[in-house]
């Protein structure tokens, strides 16, 4: 078990190194730089700025220099937001995105799994059609349309919620619903199909023959097994929604992290691009590892150490 963990961590570190290297190369391959503007600044001032951020050094030196900082947990200063560090930006904004992301995740899991179970139990009947109809809509309607519609009705027409901004629990509702649309629908479909699969298994019939109560069969024997694909999906899902969504944050004026994933590239804010990529990779790899452990808890047939035991 410990050996497995160590191996996983090593391969994760290797993966992150590759991510950094590839991002570094691509980032510098894009024309333009962080200190470019329509008003060209005098060459001497540009030289001052580049010297300050060590951009005047050859690329391989910058690369080694950057890595040595990353190893110490320092993601460097932002070039665009002068005075701010990448660590500071993440520390300030990640809690906002995380709060919204966890809310979204809770909605998606509860509503998605619930709807999927209902659909499976009533396969081919009205509840199935209704949930699957809504899940088709959920998958095909993008979050910005859902968000705009919610804002139009809940804020503009009926005045129930503040249209945008952040800070109170009311501010979380609409963006969380907008973000949850797609994952909820997707999880509902996943749950439904895997539930149907499980319900047709022999052990279901055995349980039924044993005379177990219906709720117990469904909750203990069916759902627990049907949930595995959902667990697989929730690793990357969590990593994606915890780090924020550019478009939903933009619509609802939320000071989250999502914005920086996009604007840092436009700004050629090299350290922010790299820092966020690293942060996202760590989150993604970490959550995927967590998911792998979660499998073993749900399904004793799955062993982490593979065929060796």
């Amino acid at each position: 078990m410990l050996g497995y963990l160590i191996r996983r961590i090593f391969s994760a570190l290797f993966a992150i190194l590759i991510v950094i290297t590839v991002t570094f190369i691509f980032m510098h391959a894009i024309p333009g730089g962080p200190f470019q503007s329509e008003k060209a600044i005098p060459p001497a001032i540009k030289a001052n700025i580049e010297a300050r951020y060590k951009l005047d050094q050859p690329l391989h030196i910058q690369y080694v220099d950057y890595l040595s900082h990353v190893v110490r947990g320092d993601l460097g200063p932002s070039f665009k937001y002068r005075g701010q560090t990448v660590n500071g930006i993440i520390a300030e904004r990640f809690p906002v995105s995380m709060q919204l992301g966890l809310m979204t995740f809770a909605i998606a899991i509860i509503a998605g799994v619930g709807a999927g179970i209902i659909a499976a139990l009533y396969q081919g009947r009205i509840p199935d059609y209704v949930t699957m109809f809504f899940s088709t809509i959920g998958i095909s309607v993008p979050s910005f349309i859902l968000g705009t519609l919610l804002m139009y009705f809940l804020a503009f027409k009926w005045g129930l919620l503040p249209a945008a901004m952040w800070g109170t629990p009311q501010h979380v509702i609409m963006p969380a619903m907008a973000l949850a649309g797609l994952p909820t629908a997707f999880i509902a479909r996943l749950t439904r199909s895997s539930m149907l699969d499980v319900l047709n298994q022999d052990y279901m019939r055995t349980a039924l023959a044993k005379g177990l109560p219906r709720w117990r069969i469904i909750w203990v024997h069916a759902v627990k097994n049907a949930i595995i694909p959902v667990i697989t999906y929730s690793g990357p899902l969590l990593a994606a929604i915890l780090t924020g969504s550019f478009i939903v944050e933009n619509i609802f004026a939320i000071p989250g992290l999502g914005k920086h994933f996009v604007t840092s590239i436009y700004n050629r804010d090299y350290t922010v691009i790299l820092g966020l990529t690293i942060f996202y990779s760590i989150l993604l790899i970490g959550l995927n590892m967590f998911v792998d452990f979660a499998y073993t808890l749900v399904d004793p047939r799955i062993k982490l150490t593979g065929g060796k035991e």
Partner: protein
Amino acid sequence: MKKFSLILAILLCAILLLNGCGTETGDNGDSPGEEPGEENGEEMVLTFNVGTEPETMDPHLSTGVPEATMMLQMYEGLARLNVNSVPELALAESVDVSEDDLVYTFHLRDGLVWSNGEPLTAEDFELSWKRALDPELAADYAYMLYYIKGAEAYNTGTGSVDDVMVEALDDKTLQVTLEAPTPFFMSLVAFKTYYPLYQPAIEEDPEGWHLSADTIIGNGPFNLVSWAQGQMEFIPNDNYYDADAVILDRLIFTMVENESTELTMFETGEIDMTHTVPGPEIPRLEQTGELNILPYLGTYYYIFQVEKPPLDDINVRKALTLAIDREALVTNVTQGGQLPAFAYVPPGIPEADGSDFRENGGDYYSYDPETAKQLLAEAGYPDGAGFPSVEILYNTSEMHKMIAEAIQEMWKQNLGIENVTLTNQEWGVYLNTRDEGDFMIARAGWIGDYLDPYTFLDMWLTDGGNNNSRFSNADYDRLLAEVRMLDDEVTRMEMMHQLEDILMEEMPICPIYYYTQPIMVKSYVKGYASIAVGGIDFKTAYVEE
């Protein structure tokens, strides 16, 4: 089963816990009840959407217009621009200018203090300006201080800080020696690179002093009291020398970037005033009286890369310029109250006698498809026959695309030029392409730094950093050098008209429209001042019942 429910329970707990934490900080962030003065009924609050988060709150480092708006409320220089963007003495009570216009001696007001009550002296100015020039600080706008003797040398590493000719003679007297006569120097000292900054705060935390409302010490009409959750809150600064002029009890800046969200919030009354308007809404808002078109000192134009045939031919450049129907373009395409440009320097710059530079200069051309056709024929392309393919480059944006398409169509209709192609590039790539001169025609815009035609004209110097057209004219360069050394305002303006004459005769650029800044504003918001070189001043703003 047990393990499974355990995971679920832990997950749920985690969610609740994290949500709980987040909400609490949220409440602390913008609790409205912490200020006194609510006993006498309603507070006068104004909410303005500044549209974006600041890139930095350090006045010496900032370059953008949103930042300028924020800093106008929190800081003040020796002078402050009024509604017409004309400088008026502010922290300085009087100024003596030497006979040769090179030495400015500013006398500060009595009893000036920072927002924390500490005295503000001439030495604060001296230290602040030298800090802005420090090559280590690497400020973009350091060149705004290059008019001071010794400033450029220090900033570019060839001189010493001691040779920068700004000196506090005593607590209340600041003496500045300039490199050359600079008639717009009073306008410059109102600019943010010339703001005094509270030195102890900078010494304590040189990098991060401006990151939190707690550590920013200003000297303007308002104090920043909170900055969190995408919102800034200001209250009047009781230590401001002109505090009586400030009427608002509270000023709130929101940072909503999305235009349709901004519109919804304006409609629901969550914000009273914005920095922009979604284009299609302009006619409707004009009807309801909630539209205000503010002046904005800038020109939108196309650059001709004059080294690339057929654009190396002056007649081709002229033909293309004359064949654009600018009236139709601003009324049907841009629809933002822009003014069609028939010259380069935008209106709004006063000359020595107060008359407008643009009015005096007049129009250089008009919409004239007939002449355009003739010019094109003279260049060897009658009715566009044999005209080589040209490409219009713009940075990716719906508006730039619509304008380029309209112009493409006008050239086709009026000149018979069929093969005009459009290409768009992402901002950074586009700037790079422009710098490298790897284009034929490119969209561009220029916003003045100060209220003087020179801020528009000096960029067309041969090999100048902003001269993407690669235009080169010996007369132009010579005149420009003369203007720089001239202190007689009347002759100076005359020469700048001559500079514009050359530019419009050679036509390395094709002006399209003069910028304006249309905003949404509720009819009860009064007393704000818009600065044509960027920013809105709320010093005397108020809300009418």
